[in-house]
């Protein structure tokens, strides 16, 4: 069992300052990129020191979970600022204005060993479709594009984020397409579908369809019994209250095949120092329950 991160990480103070200064014309592009690289390297080192694997680069140049898609896929444009689930965090809604396909240029967004990317259902629910008559075709084209990205990047770990499964009502055909996308990615490397921000009972539907590696959020959702490999989102990424190691160990021991323990969602909802405290906690728990 290893600890791992599952999304966009909180930015350290130096990077926050650099982004502010860059926006205001007080920092050159070169110095800004240097600050970005320093932050990525610092986080990768923190993960290595704490036994996290696979590592992520913090996704520090992702302005939101969808921005790299809009910037590297055909058929997408930037839409209005929109609340990201029930957070005080906002994203620019992707507008679908033409057929979706991968163009090029994703490499600059992934420097760690794992790609975290919205799954096809969450992409469908959080974008604005002005082109497709058939939303299943939309999901297929999107999944094909992700597959092209993964092939180009050559990453060995892919995490499809599907938070929309906790708050929308997917039909069987939607679950079929998530499973289809998952299996295709699994042929390239390790793939996991991560469900978070609420109850994860839709994981059972994915399990029925052959998805054999699922991430679940047991902080904000009720535990669900699965026979699959599990990524267990067990630490609260949306509150600074620090969990006790004993509580976390008890939670982890309720599940059979936990491959990864993780924060329940992106750690960008916490200040960097608090994210680090929770990472250390995960490292301790992984050591205790290994």
């Amino acid at each position, binding site marked *: 069992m290893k600890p791992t991160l599952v999304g966009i990480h909180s930015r350290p103070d130096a990077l926050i300052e650099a982004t502010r200064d860059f926006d205001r014309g007080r920092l050159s592009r070169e110095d800004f990129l240097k600050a970005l690289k320093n932050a990525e390297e610092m986080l990768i080192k923190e993960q290595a020191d704490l036994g996290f694997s696979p590592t992520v680069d913090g996704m520090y140049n992702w302005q939101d979970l969808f921005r790299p898609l809009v910037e590297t896929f055909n058929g997408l444009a930037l839409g209005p600022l929109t609340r990201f689930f029930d957070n005080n965090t906002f994203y620019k809604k992707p507008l679908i204005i033409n057929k979706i396909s991968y163009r090029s240029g994703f490499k600059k967004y992934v420097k760690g060993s794992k790609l975290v990317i919205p799954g096809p259902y969450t992409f469908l629910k959080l974008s604005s479709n002005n082109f497709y008559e058939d939303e299943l075709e939309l999901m297929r084209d999107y999944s094909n594009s992700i597959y092209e990205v993964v092939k180009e990047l050559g990453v060995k770990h892919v995490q499809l984020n599907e938070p929309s499964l906790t708050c929308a009502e997917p039909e069987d055909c939607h679950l079929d397409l998530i499973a289809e996308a998952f299996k295709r990615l699994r042929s390239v490397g390790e793939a996991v579908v991560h469900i978070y921000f609420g109850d994860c009972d839709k994981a059972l539907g994915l399990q029925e369809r052959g998805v054999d590696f699922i991430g679940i959020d047991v*902080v904000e959702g009720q535990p669900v019994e699965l026979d699959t490999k599990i990524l267990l989102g067990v630490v*609260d990424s949306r509150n600074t209250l620090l969990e006790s190691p004993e509580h976390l160990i008890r939670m982890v021991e309720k599940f059979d095949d936990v491959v990864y323990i993780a924060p329940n969602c992106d750690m960008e909802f*916490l*200040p960097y120092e608090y994210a680090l405290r929770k990472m250390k906690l995960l490292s301790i728990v992984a050591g205790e329950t290994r």
Partner: protein
Amino acid sequence: MKTQEIGSLAKPNWRVKHLRGLSLNEEDIAELRYWNGLLNVDFDYRLLESRSPDKIAKHSALLAIRLLEMAGLDVVFDGEQLRGEMYEYPLRHLSGFAFRGVVRSFDNKYYRKASCVSKPKLLEPYHIEEYLFTRQNTSKEIKVPVTGPYTLAEWSYDEYYTRKYLDLGLGHREAKLKAKEELVMDLAREVIRPNLEALVNAGARIIQVDEPALTTKPNEVPMFVEAFNEMSSGLDCKLVVHVCYGDYSLLLPHVLNLKNCSQLALEFANRDDENRTGYRVLGLFKEYLYERELGLGVVDVHSDYIESPELVKNRIIYASRFIEPDKIYVNPDCGLRTRTWRVAYQKLRNMVLGAKLAKEELEVD
């Protein structure tokens, strides 16, 4: 059909730098000269060479009032030049919160986020000086923005109440919900209510409770309604509730239970297109027989695009299908603090011109 602002204007570079003790460059001083000249406000430039943060902040507030007046608004404030911003500033005036660090709101925009660590208590009312300053410097109607209890709670972490309910043996989700209910109500009773009372006693006639977070969690709107009714009961002033960047369908029917609220002021332009998609949700307000005033957001505060008077007019005319024209107040989507003063002024000026066109077409005052 009156025009109003929603709250903030940007803090000009000359104000920010002076308050931080940094030296101003020629560009900063040129900007200050530009606005002093345009708005016809006297200024002793020797102040820039001494440490005069209070005087500089007040000058900035005076210019903001004049800018809003010159744009032609009916209801004004001081552009929130005498407060830091809408979250950290109030929390600095209460006990019970500790700042934990900086988190991102979107893109490269951040805010310093606090955690509730004990029961909140107001240390002293924190908007009186701003209100009195504005009253001394304008003859227009004044609307004072005050951050509401739900938003203060929603934008904070909570270590105190959550720990309390976890220790009582509640599950995580239930503990968080009970904790939130208690925190919101305590903020309403112990912090916002005495603040509102102090403002009313000082003479404030219109107060806007800012609740941008209100639609964040769909099941928690009734929590705010209960807290609002508790904190506003019997207050002798007009109360407005401002909400933005959320799904307004979640507000209904709950907001109909707000007892002492005259107006909802909402953002729409950000989500609009040539088909008036952004304003269609107003159909739901009509369906629910919403009959109070509506503050209609007609200019986007996150873009430098200057809406034409014609576009503003079209948005108002479209909205009038659902809301009686004499119940419409015309405003920007939200505070204009992310735009330069030049862009903000042009947007507001066109907003006022557009409202005038709409009034002519709808034949209302």
